[in-house]
């Protein structure tokens, strides 16, 4: 997933009956395309200018070792269990018709093979420990939520950021959302890995005000080792976007031991400065938010043993990149 969108919480436990009803301002929207999103975060202040709402689309073609939003990877909804919220009351076990949850060492353990994501356990759980991450939503439903903070966008020069996952994996929904924002004159940003067919990016031209594009490693082989894909397509897309004069902020995650060596930082700096008209760079320190989320998803993967970079280290990297004539911000 792109690096800007940090740690969205999920809050399936607090959905009110009308939360998903389209607002009146969205009446001109046809029910239209739907897609899978896993969160809508308001007062996002690190994903582009001003006060923003960030919409997280689910599914990502990359699998970065350090991913702090592991719930964003799979394109489909999935079950999650928040250990810290669970009080071991067993209500979920009783609620499940399929016997997909059973006691195991005093814990209600979930069996994905039996689960059909019906949501009975989520409904029954009194503490919000059971969640389904990812829900199908229409553009109209998403826009109704987005529009709630228009007054804050207006005052702050903010808008909406589409993030993920990789928002370009759901091009039809994304296109419809961007068009709806355009009609309402809401500033849009797309937070993307740029790992997508050029056709997709081409189809969105004219409806994106700002691209937030990641460069996770300058070397393609290393990129593939760290994220599962090489960076050739990513860089080609970036060059094209830059050449077309799109506004781009490059975001560089700083992952100690993986991409923060001097040589890679220099190569990254050279690479960015070679992009037409691109000068804005955000460097984003690694954070450990993904660790607890992995546990929630009951994935087998071991969380990576990475420490957050020190402020001094971040400052040194900022300085190194600034030497390429770039405007560097730490933290986005």
């Amino acid at each position, binding site marked *: 997933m792109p690096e800007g969108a*940090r*740690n969205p919480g999920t809050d399936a436990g607090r959905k*009110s009956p009308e939360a998903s009803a389209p607002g009146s301002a969205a009446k001109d929207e046809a029910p239209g395309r739907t897609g899978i999103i896993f969160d809508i975060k308001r007062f996002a202040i690190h994903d582009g200018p001003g006060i923003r709402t960030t919409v997280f689309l689910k599914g990502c073609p990359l699998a970065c070792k350090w991913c702090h939003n592991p719930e964003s990877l799979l394109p489909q909804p999935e079950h999650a269990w928040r250990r810290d919220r669970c009080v071991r009351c067993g209500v979920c076990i009783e609620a499940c018709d399929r016997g997909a949850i059973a006691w195991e060492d005093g814990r209600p353990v979930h069996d994905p093979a039996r689960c059909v994501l019906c949501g009975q356990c989520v409904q029954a759980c*009194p503490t919000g420990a059971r969640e389904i991450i990812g829900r199908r939503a229409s553009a109209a439903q998403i826009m109704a939520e987005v529009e709630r903070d228009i007054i804050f966008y207006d*005052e702050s020069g903010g808008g909406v950021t589409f993030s993920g996952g990789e928002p370009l994996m759901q091009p039809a929904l994304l296109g419809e959302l961007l068009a709806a924002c355009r009609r309402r004159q809401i500033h849009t940003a797309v937070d993307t890995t740029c790992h997508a067919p050029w056709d997709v990016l081409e189809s969105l031209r004219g409806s994106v005000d700002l691209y937030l594009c990641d460069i996770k490693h300058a070397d393609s082989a290393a990129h593939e080792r760290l994220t599962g894909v090489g960076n050739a397509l990513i860089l080609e897309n970036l060059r094209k976007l830059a050449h077309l004069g799109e506004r781009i902020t490059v975001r560089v995650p700083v992952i100690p031991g993986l991409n923060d060596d001097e040589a890679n930082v220099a190569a990254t700096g050279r690479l960015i400065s070679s992009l037409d008209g691109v000068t804005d760079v955000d460097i984003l320190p690694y954070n450990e938010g993904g660790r607890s989320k992995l546990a929630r998803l009951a994935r087998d993967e071991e969380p990576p043993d990475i420490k957050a970079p020190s402020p001094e280290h971040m400052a040194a990297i900022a300085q190194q990149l600034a030497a390429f004539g770039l405007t560097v911000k730490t933290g986005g």
Partner: protein
Amino acid sequence: MNERVTHLRTQSVETKPYISSERAELITAFYKSGEIEKVSVPVGRALAFRYLMEHRTISIGEGELIVGERGPAPKATPTYPELCCHSLQDFEIMATRERTPFQVSDQVRRVYAEEIIPFWSGRTIRERLFGAMADGWHQAFEAGVFTEFMEQRAFGHAILDDKIYRHGFLDFKERIAAHRRRLDTLNDPRAFDKDEELRAMAICADAIILLAERYAAVARELAETETDPARKAELLTIAEVCSRVPAHAPRTFHEALQAYWFAHLGVITELNTWDSFNPGRLDQHLHPFYAGETAHGTLTRDQAVELLECFWIKFNSQPAPPKVGITEEQSGTYQDFALINVGGVKADGADAINEVSYLILDVVRQMQLIQPSAAVQLSKKSPDRLLARACEIIRTGLGQPSMFNTDTIIKEMLHDGKSLADARCGGPSGCVTVSAFGKESCTLTGYMNWPKILEVTCCGGVDPNSGREIGHATGDPRTFGSFEQFFEAFRRQLEYFVDVKIAGNNFIERLYATSMPAPYMSILMDDCIEKGRDYHNGGARYNPTYIQGVGLGTLTDALTAVRYHVYDRGTVSMDELLQAMRANFDGHENLRRTLAHKTPAYGNDDDYADETAERIFNAYFDMLDGRPNTKGGAYRVNLLPTTVHIYFGAVTGALPNGRCAGVPLSEGISPSQGADLKGPTAVFKSAARIDHARTGGTLLNMKFSPQVLAGDGIIHLAALIRSYFRLDGHHVQFNVVDADTLRAAQEDPEAYRNLIVRVAGYSDYFVDVGRRLQDEIISRTEQQTA
């Protein structure tokens, strides 16, 4: 801060508050003399005031430029036995309590035991008030359904306008005399009453001038023996200033500040007003003096700052007099709620910001004191640099300034029938309630415990704490077939208690009007002189009365839980819910969790919850707004708690939103603690659902951890405030600390003595506010960023 100010500030901050019995002794001696029985009530009170001014101690501290204290010295706190008389036990409690203690000497206790208590026992306003209230009132009061301000302190919320900067008390005396001459004793049946009121005011005008002259005389004496020539010159200047003001209109910046301070001392010595008097729009009042003097070269910016800082210290040295009969949990503050306004608009509607506005903000930032509080009035015309400056100070974690929306304030005042010009020249007073400065008796009568009333509704009119039937018999909720019926029962219950409270208020207003007039304050408040009527008797131009609604967040969530789980989804029966509440959820843990975690909650911009908030507000508004009080004014709605949400929480049992018995209520219009999970924009949207323009003030508290406001965060803060105000929000204030810091402060109070937090309508030292309030502040949701 220069050396002088640093010294004075240290002295003010480090001196421990203590009780002075001087005022009590003087007032008792005067009442015992029998003089008061020979004259009318207002004249008697005026003579008492004069006696105080003649005999009280004059105190000029080392290095002071602005002079005068409420008691005989800084932090010496007088008492008001004619209103309510402290017992020896009260003194013991206040002297030994851990937080906000007052030292009480053996001498004070002896004087009280021998003279003060024996004389006042049975005669105080407090005793007369309690003696006259109906049974229903007592039952509700004891159950914690509402509080009563006037059992402890006199009517207050009086804020001064610009009159003392343009006129002296000799001018006021002349005006009083003119009105006396014009009285029509043949045709006006109130002529005698008016004459007595006016005579009383004239006596008080002389008395305050006398006090200033006594200060001038002491300054001259001190100058004679002073060996340091610089200090000698200062003392002679003080003598000259005190000879000039407040008898005459001030001519200089220094005289203007001293004139206000004498006016202030008069008000807080005459009676113990709720809340402290204050100068209101200080930047407006001082600007002509500042501009004139700096242009003529008689005042430098540094001198003006020094004088303002000395003025600030004066407020800080006057702790609020401790209350009677209650513990620190209910009344844990030295704050006397002086709220100095900066910004806003002028009478003609133009932006009012001036150089002194920024000067004052600099002083606020420098002084880091809990008193006086500063408020920034932000109108749509206010420049962004004013907002930016305010945000910079907010970011330091001072808890000040609080932010007020001038455009909404004006609408609120127009709703109360004020003229446009008076509305524009007013602002928030004390905590958050609006007032037309210099022209209004803005009376807050007590807090209404909304969630308690829901509890009583759930029990069909019975208070489950006592088992007594204290409310209206609204029926057994298990027989209600719909949420509409449930809400209507609550509404009727609320209306019953509002009626009980108003009936009490009507008596109390007349008690003060007839027995405890305030002829000195009446000089300062338009149109008491013109009407020949006391401030407590409808003399002011505007006379609204408030019963402050408390617990909007808690009540909304509780009603929403009933609507959602019992009626809309049908997953919980009313019987089950009531049983669980009765058991304080003991044995019903899963139900409690479901109610607490899986109910749409106020503060999340969720229509399902917020429409209930709106409905509660509208119901309260409809039953209260516009009802007449005894002063020719009307009841209005405001929503603020000060610290009473702690006390109200303690007396309120378990509620349908899964809140357990004893837990603090939500404060102001803020969400229930921890219930807002969608960030600050959602909180602002929810808070703006109620129509602030139909209130006299609302209080919204937000807490940010420092990192949210670092760097560009300050721009986001400014945008949040502007957005909320575009939505007609009345007020917002910010705490900028993280929970870990607060916990550390609880563990090691000594190391965090300087930590200031915004409590409700004011800031206080965190280590002073009481453990439970500390815990409550910590639990308020930190607004996390994405």
